[in-house]
């Protein structure tokens, strides 16, 4: 009965870990509570996206993750 939260890129530094298991179900309020103050502050920013089950949420505040789901926190990207 758990959800996996993945911290991508610089968010892993802020979280101090790459992933964390939390109890299912998980909504936006639960996510904010679960990730610590520093990551929560980033999550509130427009430029940070959230994916659930491998899909980027159009409205991250509508998050509703269930048992076995993976929630990825996606800060601004840079490649190439």
């Amino acid at each position, binding site marked *: 009965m758990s959800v996996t939260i993945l911290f*991508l*890129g610089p968010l892993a530094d802020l979280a101090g870990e790459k992933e964390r298991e939390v109890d299912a179900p998980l909504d936006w309020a639960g996510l904010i509570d679960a990730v610590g103050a520093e990551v929560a502050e980033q999550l509130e920013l427009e430029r940070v996206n959230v*994916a659930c089950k*491998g899909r980027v949420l159009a409205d991250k505040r509508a998050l509703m993750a269930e048992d076995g789901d993976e929630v990825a926190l996606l800060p*601004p*990207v*840079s*490649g*190439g």
Partner: protein
Amino acid sequence: MGEALAAFNAAHGEAGGVVSFLGKVRPDGNVRALELTHYEPLTLPGMEDLAKTAASRFGLDGALVWHRIGVMMPGEAIVLVATAARHRRDAFEAADYLMDHLKSAAWLWKRERRDDGWHWIEPRGQDHEDLARWQ
């Protein structure tokens, strides 16, 4: 990677022009290494969509989009794109388009190790401007 490009050329014998871009870790100042992280469920499908969009927008015969992940040392290749088109202008623009998107609109996170540790890299203002050209 030379082989990937050779195979791409061979596969597109009908194309009038093939453009390639190879990006490497620059042995710049005190950059000792680069690390690229991805998120598999998004990164690869995103790159496939990007290639399809470019192929359709520029009328390409083919597109190759290749990006390494993990830790890379100065001089090593990071990224390779290649585009095949009937006319050279389309091939040039499509390669440019692909690189601008990989740089600041693909699901990749980059950090570099300097003498004082690792630093995450965010796209520069120039990268955002480059991307905005296509919108």
